[in-house]
């Protein structure tokens, strides 16, 4: 992961937000306003601007290709999605990748690059409206602060924007894994307030309500469909049955390992929270004692006819301990959730496969 800062200067956006993981910020002002206008017009009161995402086959292939070429291991690749909103459907018709950064071209201008790119695309008459971004993931570990931040700034500027998460490992196992996510309006509210602990408490939000998944439809032109049929006939049988592979241990092990790490973090967070709780209650007690003492003293003074002691600022005397960051644990919980989903999905599939294999074996015998 790499981080970069970018100033976002778009109308309707009051703050400059620090963004991590993506730099797709500059959109031509005309397109933004247009898109936003459309979104508002179609989506109504902002409950959910987009109900469905329709992706062109071309975009999927481009994303896959991008990862094949540049991503490896835990490294992720990112890019910009282009398209437009039609009614409550977001059509993603094209995309382009962010170039991979190396140390020596640190002065590379992201914004400039995107502008250039979109302008060039417009020249060849391709949709050039910025509607979101995509990112690859390593065993489904994408619920991070960076993703949250950048998706927030996207959604803040372009309401209908989505993030596409592409899981190359699952895809390699035979089933394409591409998911579109958006931040829930609740979370958007929270993020806007910027005061996470308080806002989160108020919003009463849990990890389940952080992201909403938008259903995806992959749409190909008829010509492509025809070609696909052609190809299917020609391809060897083995190619099609990666899905049936019984080798599951590696993937599962990896997932478990990651899950364990997250659980460890969670434990730490809880321990942190525990100490925080202890500290606050201790302080409360002290505060209470202090007040009582004060009161007693004042009573005595009163009886002696002396003026009461002046009131002191208690908050100065007792500084409340720093509460632990809630957002982080929330994200971890979300991540754990994702892992669990993954594992569940995976094991369910595998079990099915195993039963199939068993049945097959019995049949053969």
């Amino acid at each position, binding site marked *: 992961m790499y981080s970069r800062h970018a100033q976002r200067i778009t109308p309707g956006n009051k703050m400059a937000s620090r963004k991590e993981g993506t730099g797709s910020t500059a959109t031509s002002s005309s397109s933004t306003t247009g898109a936003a206008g459309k979104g508002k017009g179609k989506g109504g009161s902002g409950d959910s601007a987009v109900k469905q995402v329709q992706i062109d086959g071309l975009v999927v292939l481009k994303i896959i290709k991008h990862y094949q070429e540049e991503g490896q291991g835990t490294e992720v690749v990112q890019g910009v999605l282009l398209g437009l909103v039609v009614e409550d459907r977001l059509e993603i018709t094209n995309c382009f990748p962010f170039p991979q950064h190396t140390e020596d071209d640190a002065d590379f201008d992201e914004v400039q690059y995107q502008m250039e790119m979109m302008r060039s695309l417009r020249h060849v008459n391709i949709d050039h409206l910025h509607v979101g971004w995509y990112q690859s993931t390593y065993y489904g570990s994408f619920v991070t602060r960076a993703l949250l931040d950048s998706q927030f700034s996207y959604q803040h500027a372009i309401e209908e924007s989505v993030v596409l998460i592409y899981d190359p490992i699952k895809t390699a196992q035979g089933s394409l894994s591409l998911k579109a996510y958006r931040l829930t309006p609740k979370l958007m509210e929270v993020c806007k307030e910027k005061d996470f602990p308080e806002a989160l*408490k108020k919003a*009463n939000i*849990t990890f389940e309500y952080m992201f909403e998944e938008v259903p995806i439809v992959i749409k190909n032109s008829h010509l492509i469909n025809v070609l696909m049929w052609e190809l299917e006939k020609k391809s060897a049988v083995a190619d099609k049955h990666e899905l049936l592979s*019984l080798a*599951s*241990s590696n993937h*599962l*092990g990896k997932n*478990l*390992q990651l*899950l*364990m790490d997250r*659980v*460890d973090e*969670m*434990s730490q967070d*809880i*321990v942190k*929270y*525990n100490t925080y*709780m*202890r500290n606050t*209650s201790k302080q409360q007690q002290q505060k209470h004692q202090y007040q009582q003492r004060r009161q007693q003293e004042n009573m005595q003074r009163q009886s002696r006819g002396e003026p009461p002691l002046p009131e002191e600022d208690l908050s100065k005397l007792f500084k409340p301990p720093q509460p632990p960051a809630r957002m982080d644990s929330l994200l971890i*919980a979300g991540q*754990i*959730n994702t892992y*669990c989903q993954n*594992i*569940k999905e995976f*094991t369910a599939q595998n*079990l099915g496969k*195993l039963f199939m*294999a*068993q049945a097959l074996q019995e049949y053969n015998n």
Partner: protein
Amino acid sequence: MSRFFTTGSDSESESSLSGEELVTKPVGGNYGKQPLLLSEDEEDTKRVVRSAKDKRFEELTNLIRTIRNAMKIRDVTKCLEEFELLGKAYGKAKSIVDKEGVPRFYIRILADLEDYLNELWEDKEGKKKMNKNNAKALSTLRQKIRKYNRDFELEAHLLNWECMTELSGGGVGWTDGWRASMIVLSLPSVQNPEQSADEDAEKNEEDSEGSSDEDEDEDGVSAATFLKKKSEAPSGESRKFLKKMDDEDEDSEDSEDDEDWDTGSTSSDSDSEEEEGKQTALASRFLKKAPTTDEDKKAAEKKREDKAKKKHDRKSKRLDEEEEDNEGGEWERVRGGVPLVKEKPKMFAKGTEITHAVVIKKLNEILQARGKKGTDRAAQIELLQLLVQIAAENNLGEGVIVKIKFNIIASLYDYNPNLATYMKPEMWGKCLDCINELMDILFANPNIFVGENILEESENLHNADQPLRVRGCILTLVERMDEEFTKIMQNTDPHSQEYVEHLKDEAQVCAIIERVQRYLEEKGTTEEVCRIYLLRILHTYYKFDYKAHQRQLTPPEGSSKSEQDQAENEGEDSAVLMERLCKYIYAKDRTDRIRTCAILCHIYHHALHSRWYQARDLMLMSHLQDNIQHADPPVQILYNRTMVQLGICAFRQGLTKDAHNALLDIQSSGRAKELLGQGLLLRSLQERNQEQEKVERRRQVPFHLHINLELLECVYLVSAMLLEIPYMAAHESDARRRMISKQFHHQLRVGERQPLLGPPESMREHVVAASKAMKMGDWKTCHSFIINEKMNGKVWDLFPEADKVRTMLVRKIQEESLRTYLFTYSSVYDSISMETLSDMFELDLPTVHSIISKMIINEELMASLDQPTQTVVMHRTEPTAQQNLALQLAEKLGSLVENNERVFDHKQGTYGATSEVNQKDGYRKTRATCAAVATASSHLKQPT
């Protein structure tokens, strides 16, 4: 002066002196190359009205003087500078030179300089010692002067020839002549302090004496004959004689010199005549003895100091004079020789009866000066030594001599003002000799009682009826000597020949300690005996007893042994010796420190000689491990050394685990060097100040006691490897496995981080490579990495029984590789034949059987042995990787839930209900995950 020359014994001693000198005269020849033209120059500066010639020549002479001074102190760089200036000055004076001819002194300096440089050039030793600048200047100057002199050659020849003809004594070359004169001229530095009141007169005297002496040499008249003449002749005659000589001198000398000599001769007074005999004697003595004028200067300085110090005391003044006489030559050589005969009477007033009281009084006088500022320590030692001689000559009895000797040794120790500096070798030699002599006396006279508790008042130094009692502690002296020895060793470069030389003294030190030990065994208190025993122990414990070792290897074969062998084998086994000494200390010692040290040394000695069990038991029984942190740093260092030796010993015995445990503390700190007192860490240099550093430096163990750090590290790493690799293999997937050795893991990681893995170079790389091989169960590769040429040279050959250690090591590697193999690959096998294993690891069947049985019993290996077929049948009950992970996860989740519940408890009532829901939800979720994982893993178990 006159006072002292009127004493009767004077002339005799003088003549005997000069008589001796005659024989040794030629030796002094080389000295003449460093003359001192002091008198002329000083005379010159007084002049006010000068001609151009004078001015130029003065310039030249001044430069020449500087050159000569530089030559004296061997400052070649200075010489070079001055020589260049001289060349320029000569150029300026060219017009005068043309008129007057080349001045003789100029040629003289050129010739001198060339001689001097050649001498320096030849002196390879000296050249090596010279610093770089000087060496460079030397070669430059040498070349320059050669070139310069070539130009001058013609003139020089001419002059040379002239001189030859001019000189009266044809047999003696002119150069020799003037050289002699130079020598005499250097006399002022040996002035008599009494005379120095009248500086001018003195100078004149010297001049005259110088000239006379010169003449004497030129004429080939020996000092002895001259002396005789003088004693016969009345004063008037001698004066005439002097005059005559001066005249001769004027003839022979150059014009510019004439004036000087003139004034010198005319102003010489009667004093000089009386003195001249002595002076000439001195002069000739110079020829013989003084090696460098520097020495004289020093001596002169010393004298001046002495004078200031002792002016008040007439007696001591005399002593002083005599001292000067003594030091006029090089004092060291003079000590035992003739001067003593002469000086004896001067130590005390003439005719004074030398009694105990007088000597003791003198001794106290000398001692009072001790420690005072401005006291010359060297002179003091000298005085004390003289006093001993006097006492011995006058048969004052051993008591006095012992007393003085004590004081001499004490002054020798005092010689160095601060603790950090160490004794000079000659001082050290003297000190050893002195102690030896003292011991001789003490052994020869059993009736002398020595002790520090004897008060000054109750001393009995001379009453022969009662036993002699002397204050002083021989033990303290020896302990101090030992300290000094350590200091010398610490301050010597351990890789130099010098160190070896110093180390040779160790035998002497040991011998002295042994003698003192014998002495104290008879006379000392138990406490003293304990102390000297400890000293003995400290000089014994670290030495490997090769003889005893040899004896062990070859058990006595009756009478077949040759005589020589027996002679060699005589002497106590160091083990027996240590046992005896230590037991005594254990029983008798009342100070904790000595006992602690003794125990540690004993353990060390045991460990060094591979008596592991004795060493270990002693270590455990002493309970030193519990309270060593309260000991002082040197003892702690000793403790560390002992532990390390113990570890190495355990390793040699094949007890890897014990070895590892013993070495763990030292090695894990990463400061082994510092902990063993074998060097300071650079890292902490800035943390400590100067003072601390000095203290630490003093704690360092001398090099010959060092334990090889590489050996130590290797032993540690190899034992760690033998322990850790099987352990790692056994607990591959155990999340909670702990590292046995952090350092070993660190090395492994370093090895892994290497981008390109070449063949191992260093010891560490070898061990890492071997570990990797062992991890795969490949014992042969492992073996070849651990034991090969390189490692033999670096490590294994350092052991006394290298081959035994190597055999042990091979066997260990085989065994541990077998274990590792079984741990790693047991999941692949259903069953495996033990015979195959025994073939694979080249171990015999029973060993394999026992190893596997042990593993099964310890529940490390889930298998059973099938006796009839000699196979190991695996049970395959070990969880798979996923199952392991799932178990770990379940565990983690358990703890998470626990934590969560604690939070929940906390919250009840105190916090808002909103977060309660939140937490509860989370809690439910984790439970659900737990269940999911559990089902997943249980399902996964079924299929294969």
